[in-house]
């Protein structure tokens, strides 16, 4: 009888401790992974930064700021929705043009980085502490951006948060295991395509010129059409939340979007609304990044949006553009 009691008690103590360990392992304990070097970039000579602070109230200004003449030509007409937006900053070199806009859509504050690059390899990825594949290795977008001499950065897919899913960063294959998810690939030639991971291999993507492969999703826009459904699994897609996304217009021309949420001022959007925003920005392909309190856009030394926690959340990785 006493043995039975000890066995039963031992089982429940073990179950309690195991449950605690699972939670600690997932949310607290730091385990490092692989050190990842970020490619160095060439220094550019011509640089102009102009930022405009909101004038009357936080989001009252609708008068666009004049953008200094860039050294790289803007491809075609800018999306008409941006004529209603407020320019809150811009930066250009002879190979890079970034304009940061703020606009109101769906009861939310939407921040758009309109990015034109001469070479897709100017779009880089970085990990917290340059570590991939560990757990709970995190830094703020600001810290990672500063450490990598970025002018622009946004949170990306938090690749280390998952144990599976293709990951290619800066041309380097980091994870080869596929998942049920759809991923998106930025090729070295500047083109972008999304695909079901189960339909290919990471080696085939590398052969195809993959420069970045992000695995989060869902795919928002494909061939100029919205392809998301709020009712599709997982149910987080249909909830109003802060969101981050990446959009593609043409080789060398991209949109990075952050939507603030979870406040009375900015409600946030579901994935269908997010896809519509990317369509308004004339995107041919668009992909959802990690959202919620992770959604952070950083430009020229400052966070431009309002992360829903009231302060920056520490995340696993960023997409950034170096100065």
């Amino acid at each position, binding site marked *: 009888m006493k043995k039975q009691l000890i066995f039963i008690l031992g089982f*429940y103590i073990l179950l309690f401790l195991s449950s605690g360990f699972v939670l600690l392992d997932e949310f607290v304990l730091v385990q490092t992974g692989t050190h990842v070097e970020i490619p160095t970039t060439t220094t550019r000579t011509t640089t102009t930064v102009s930022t405009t602070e909101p004038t009357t109230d936080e989001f009252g200004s609708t008068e666009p700021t004049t953008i200094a003449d860039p050294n790289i030509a803007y491809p075609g007409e800018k999306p008409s929705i941006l004529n209603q937006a407020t320019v809150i900053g811009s930066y250009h070199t002879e190979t890079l043009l970034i304009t940061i806009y703020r606009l109101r859509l769906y009861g939310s504050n939407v921040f758009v980085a309109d990015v034109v690059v001469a070479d897709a390899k100017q779009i880089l990825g970085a990990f917290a502490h340059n570590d991939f594949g560990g757990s709970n290795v995190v830094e703020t977008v600001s810290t990672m951006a500063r450490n990598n001499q970025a002018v622009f950065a946004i949170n990306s897919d938090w690749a280390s948060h998952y144990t599976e899913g293709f990951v290619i960063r800066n041309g380097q294959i980091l994870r080869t295991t596929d998942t049920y998810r759809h991923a998106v690939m930025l090729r070295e030639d500047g083109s972008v395509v999304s695909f079901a991971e189960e339909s290919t291999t990471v080696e085939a993507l590398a052969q195809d010129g993959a420069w970045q492969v992000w695995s989060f999703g869902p795919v928002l826009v494909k061939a100029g059409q919205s392809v998301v459904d709020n009712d599709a699994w*997982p149910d987080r897609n249909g*909830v109003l939340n802060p969101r981050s996304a990446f959009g593609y217009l043409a080789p060398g021309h991209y949109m990075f979007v952050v939507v603030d949420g979870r406040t009375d001022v900015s409600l946030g959007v579901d994935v269908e609304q997010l896809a519509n925003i990317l369509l308004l920005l004339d995107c041919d392909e668009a992909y959802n990044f990690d959202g919620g309190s992770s959604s952070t856009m950083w430009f020229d030394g400052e966070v431009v949006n309002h992360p829903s926690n009231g302060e920056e959340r520490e995340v696993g990785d960023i997409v950034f553009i170096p100065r």
Partner: protein
Amino acid sequence: MIVAAGLFLLDFVYNQFSHGIGSWYMHLVPTVVLLAGFAPAFVVARFGEPKPVLIELWRMGLSAVVAAMILTGILEIAGSETRSLASFYGVGILLWLIAATLYLLYLARKEADR
């Protein structure tokens, strides 16, 4: 019943802070507790009371499955993949199978003794 009600409350409270994101594992935990509690009660009422150790084995299995489902729900809501929980489900189901098998053997022996 009390445990199921407590788990229902846990799911409800958790949902208030999960920004509208839910997990079917969390939603279904109270139902699993009710089913795993009532179904054997009907069997026992029909065929006879098992030894206390078998009841305890069944409860231990249920505890492991419930812990696994709650943890799966928490990780799902956090946007994580569920890791290292297969052993929880495995242990729970194994304990259920052992308890059920021993109960069936007990019934068979009881029938043979008649």
